[in-house]
């Protein structure tokens, strides 16, 4: 659990919620660590967060957001590399976790 600490939310309620999911599904820790390592390999500037936000009853119990800083053109290409890995090589347990690679800017300065 030590390496996971950096991804755990600060908000006490959300923190407990995430920890409860990780206790219930201990196999998720391995996936989260692999997915975060892969994200760090692919995206040059990345931050990972976990939460337990769900909107539909079939949504998995936890989400992993991958916040990546880059130009949108480069991010778009790297997003495709990352979701290819998720789809084909990651053994991605989609019933337990949703991984969301999100563009965190910067936006073009003028249009």
């Amino acid at each position, binding site marked *: 659990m030590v390496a996971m600490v950096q991804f755990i939310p600060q908000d006490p309620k959300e923190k407990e919620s995430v920890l409860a999911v990780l206790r219930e599904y201990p196999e998720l820790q391995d996936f989260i660590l692999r997915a975060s390592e892969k994200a760090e390999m692919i995206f040059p500037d990345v931050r990972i967060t976990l939460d337990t*936000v769900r*909107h*539909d009853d*079939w*949504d998995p119990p936890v*989400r992993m957001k991958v916040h990546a800083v880059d130009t*949108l053109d480069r*991010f*778009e290409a790297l*997003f*495709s590399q990352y*979701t*290819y890995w*998720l*789809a*084909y090589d990651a053994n*991605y347990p*989609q019933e337990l976790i*949703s*991984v*969301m*690679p*999100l*563009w*965190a*800017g910067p*936006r073009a300065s003028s249009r």
Partner: protein
Amino acid sequence: MMRGRDFLELAHHLESTRTEASHRTQISRAYYAAFLEFRAFCEEFLHHTRSKLPREHAEVAQALAAVDPQLRVDLAFLRLARNDADYELDLDAETIALQAEQARRLATSLIARLDELVSDMENDAADDSSPELANQ
């Protein structure tokens, strides 16, 4: 007749309206553009029967996995982004603006991939029914 991709045209049209509400709407329309196009594909090519239930969003994504697992992952991501845009009003305006650009691009890319897929499948079907092949 209205098609799913028509919602993407609207999302692009809304780009000039740079309000948070517009950005959130763009994300939502981008998702529905892709979802509805893929639903039509699944009905035509994968024997999917429309259930008209909320869970159909998951069913269409799961059906796509048989064709291309990455399509399932990408469509699922877009749905999550749409849910955040519609329901998570605490997300700040700048984050939403970024996600609007990302969602429009991804939906555009997904629909382009779908069109290629349909073209390949139709070409394969035409080859299968070619007289030359039938005579071999």
